[in-house]
């Protein structure tokens, strides 16, 4: 039997469709305006393929002999990441505690916790490094502090979210035994967030290895110092060696942190 009036179905009604078309149009306009405002010189884009080929020609082959000289800075980079992450975790514990709705003392401490998290996250690691280089001078110490202060917000935010999701029953049971406040924390809260803590630490360490490779540009130690120097000397073959080395340790840290995170869950 033929259907005389096939029923039609549309996901959106006319009004919604119009709004959606308008949204697409608006996005295109915003894109075009930004493009115009930036005043890009297209002649550089046209010569880019030659420039790239030229650069690669100067880079290749990588300076193998230089690799022995960057072993030290590479280790320093990893060490900056380790110490920076460790410091960040220690400092982020109290911040997470007051930044979690269920453990914070009052509204003011909660806002303070959130504020620290936002400030730490909104300042880029390069800016933190600049600040600490001014205060403590060039070197690995500034790098460690820059990485640490940059990481506090990230670690504290994730930890605070973890604390907000713990089972309150377990905490309550410990409180009901008459345990003092800090013991309730140690016994009722800490075991519940321990896997998360380990996960965050390794994940952040992995990110920090990458961050530690660039803070040398402003003098805060690590492989970035060498990279900056060799770029200035136009020693492109040495630069290529450094880039390969950075790729190597970033890959290494990523694989290691993925493995560790898999282990704890």
């Amino acid at each position, binding site marked *: 039997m033929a259907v005389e009036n096939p029923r039609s179905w549309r996901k959106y009604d006319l009004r919604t469709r119009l709004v959606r078309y308008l949204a697409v149009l608006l996005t295109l306009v915003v894109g075009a305006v930004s493009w115009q405002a930036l005043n890009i010189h297209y002649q550089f884009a046209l010569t880019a393929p030659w420039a790239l080929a030229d650069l690669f020609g100067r880079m290749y082959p990588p300076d193998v002999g230089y690799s022995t000289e960057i072993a030290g800075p590479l280790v320093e980079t990893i060490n900056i990441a380790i110490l920076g992450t460790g410091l960040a975790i220690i400092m982020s514990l109290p911040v997470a505690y007051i930044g979690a709705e269920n453990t914070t003392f009052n509204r003011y401490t909660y806002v303070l916790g959130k504020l620290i998290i936002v400030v730490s996250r909104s300042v880029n690691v390069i800016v933190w490094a600049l600040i600490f280089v001014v205060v403590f001078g060039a070197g690995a110490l500034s790098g460690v502090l820059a990485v640490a202060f940059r990481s506090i917000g990230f670690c504290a935010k994730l930890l605070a979210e973890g604390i907000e999701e713990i089972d309150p029953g*377990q905490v309550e049971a410990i*409180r009901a*035994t*008459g*345990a*003092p406040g*800090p*013991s309730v924390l140690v016994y009722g809260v800490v*075991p519940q967030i321990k896997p998360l803590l380990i996960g965050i630490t390794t994940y952040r360490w992995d990110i920090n290895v990458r961050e530690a490779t660039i803070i040398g540009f402003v003098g805060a130690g690590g492989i970035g110092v060498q990279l900056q120097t060799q770029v200035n000397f136009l020693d492109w073959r040495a630069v290529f060696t450094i880039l390969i080395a950075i790729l190597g340790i970033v890959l290494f840290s990523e694989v290691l942190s993925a493995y560790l995170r898999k282990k704890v869950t």
Partner: protein
Amino acid sequence: MLSVSELGKTYPSGERALHDVSMEVAGKEIVSIIGPSGAGKSTMIRCINRLTEPTEGSIVLDGRDVTGLSGKELQTARREMGMIFQEFNLVERLTVMENVLSGTLGYLSTWNAFRRNYQGEDVERAYEVLDRVGMAGRENARADELSGGQRQRVGIARAVLQRPKIILADEPTSALDPETSRAVMDLLTEISRDEDIPVLINIHEVELAREYAERIVGLREGEVVFEGPPEELDSDARNVIYRGAEPASPTVVAQEKTGVSISEVDKETSF
């Protein structure tokens, strides 16, 4: 001896959970609080160790008024009341032994708690109590590996380790199957006798309450509407507790209504 007088709890929303509740629990008696869902049974139990803050009345345990305490004194008062939870509330990621010994945290400094540095006699007692609750040999199992019944046994052991003067049990069998429920009730009875302490159990299975309790308190809408030995908990009394009937129902019509309602009550309470 626990003495609760004129206890009241009104939530900030204005909802009145408890009103003018008075009772005494002493010796080594087992007292059951029964009542429909939302009658205030849990609120009642939780007010006693102040996991929920009462708004009126007083709670006196062995001559000490618990209601006004704070800080260290409140901790000491809580230490004297062992609590058993419906959902067991073991610290899931810790071992059975750590959970049992967490009952002694009220006697330990945080530094020692952190290092799991328990007093030697407590460790010895923990082994004994684990044996008594039938969990010997499972010291190093993690709590999340256990079944519901086993978890509740560990929960009871934790409460006993507190050296409590009373045990408060908030629906200890609601998450368990009937057979395990009986085992847990047997265990609580045994603990009460051995330790010479009273047990206040809030329970919704009327059958279990009648079987195990020496005294039953019926709550309805936050008020005590029945109190007496299990034998006195007849169908009239159950109607008062679960259906809100008037305590005395002399007319034939009322009795007929009662006849109908009992079966409904029975369904509701797995009686």
